[in-house]
């Protein structure tokens, strides 16, 4: 998997495409959703008024669902591996969490335990995003399609779950962006997911030692 430039392909084209689609959909959904909840007329105006902003929100929601769904169907093996990786927590993962991977300046971490393709923090983030997305999807569609037929108390419940889950997801994605694009120890990840999919072999050997060992073994 390593190429002649000493790089490793971490994220394939379809993965990167799905990530881009989901990210853009998430930004539009978050922006319009925040506009609705806090009644910020300026946000609705960007999309041509309240009714149009709602239309954009709903159909972007469809993209938000269909994008990953299509990806999963077309790349089921890759998706299975991803799920397998984030579901497996070893002693190294717990040890990594104890020192928070050395990312936090106030936790001393001389020796960060070796990690899989995704570190323990990314595994937890993966689960939180999957659960959050499911909650948002499962509440969003009744809010749209069954708004006339469901009881008021259920509709109100859906709005609360939808909004607060979205708030948690926005904070998680903000943290994810900080670590993947800004933090000096990990910002190299950014180009891997957002551009060409490759990452330096040397960095991988350090940050994802277990996965790198697997790659070397299989090559």
């Amino acid at each position, binding site marked *: 998997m390593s190429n002649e430039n000493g790089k490793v392909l971490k994220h394939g084209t379809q993965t990167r495409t799905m990530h881009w689609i989901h990210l853009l959909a998430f930004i539009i959904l978050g922006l319009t959703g925040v506009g*609705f909840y806090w009644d910020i007329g300026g946000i609705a105006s960007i999309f041509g008024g*309240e009714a149009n902003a709602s239309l954009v*929100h709903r159909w972007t929601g469809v993209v938000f669902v269909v994008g990953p769904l299509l990806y999963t169907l077309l790349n089921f093996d890759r998706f299975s591996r991803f799920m397998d990786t984030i579901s497996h927590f070893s002693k190294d993962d717990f040890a990594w969490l104890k020192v928070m991977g050395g990312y936090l300046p106030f936790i001393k971490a001389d020796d960060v335990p070796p990690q899989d393709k995704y570190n323990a923090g990314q595994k937890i983030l993966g689960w939180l995003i999957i659960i959050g997305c499911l909650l948002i999807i499962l509440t969003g569609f009744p809010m*749209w399609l069954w*708004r*006339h037929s469901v009881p008021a108390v259920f509709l109100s419940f859906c*709005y609360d779950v939808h909004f607060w889950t979205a708030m948690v997801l926005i904070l998680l994605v903000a943290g994810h962006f900080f670590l993947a694009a800004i933090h000096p120890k990990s910002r190299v990840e950014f180009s891997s997911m957002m551009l060409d999919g490759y990452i330096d072999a040397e960095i991988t050997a350090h940050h994802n030692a277990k996965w790198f060992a697997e790659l070397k073994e299989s090559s």
Partner: protein
Amino acid sequence: MSTVLSEGVIHVSNDCKACDHCTFICPTGAISGELGQKHHISPKKCINCGQCLINCPFNAIHDLSRIEELKKALADPQKFVVVQEAPAVRVALGEEFGQAAGTNVKNKMYASLRKLGFDKVYDTEFTADLTIMEEGTELIHRVYGALGVPGFEEVGPLPQFTSCCPAWIKYAEDNYPLVLPHISSAKSPQQMWGAVAKTYLAEKLNVDPANMFSVSVMPCTAKKYECERPEFISSGYQDVDLVITTRELAQMIKDAGIDFMALPDEEADRFVGLSTGAATIFGATGGVMEAALRTAYEILSGESLGKVEFDAVRGLDPVREATVEVPVKALGTSLPVSVCIVTGTKHVASVIEDVLAGRSKYHFIEVMNCPGGCINGGGQPIRRDTY
């Protein structure tokens, strides 16, 4: 024209989350706005039933409140403030004080109203009985008229619709003016009570009707509209000055710091306080029909009913029908009286269309706007845990 008549009773506040749930609840299409867009109620189309209000997931719809005006009247020594309460109020008010739905708290309600400062506390049940007598007798006259009995040539046509639901009345006026001759000419119990209060009662109590302030506690927001209608001045004054809902009464009791459940049980003032069980069932769908049928049966047959309940008209289906064999002593025969009960104005259009097209088989039709009747009115406590 009063603000209520021109701008309506029900308004969407700025808290509207634009969820669009209410547009399906509204029986007249009075609510506009798409999903995501703040909604608006057209006072012209709105029948003030308040079903959108009690079904709004975000409590963003409100009814016009005149509680402050009532508090001023109660504090004014020049005003003689009398109050009536509808049958459906007493079995819902307790919910605001932790009682199970359906608990009858009428005796504590009377006590609380006295504590709030009302000079006399009466009960709408008395005029519900009057309504039954009026509507029952009118039905008999219409039947006689249809049968060609001399002396009944000028009566209205059959079938006869009930007239005590103000939301239904506005719906008919706005959408089916041709059906108006079919609607009973009897006033609602609230308005009968208002007229009696400022005439008969004022005279008996030796109170100047100009100083009498007549209040009603109703399960219904449309009653706020009804009391402002310009024709309801039989006493020479506005017959009912102000309407508060069950919710507003509960709020007044709480605001006054009254421990409702600790109040002693009291009775209504007896001046016009006598009533029958027929009046009590007015608050539930089929209740007016059942009460009027009992009356008509007794008048037409000259016999007391052995079994009082007409089970055929009970239930919660939106449109129910029944045929009751009524012996008519004067004609020496019995007549099958076909009745229909509509609960929810949404379901009444086809019934009206049949009447206007001459296809209707019914003689008497009860229409209540709110599903289940007044018990589920727009002024009742909002219980999110029950549905």
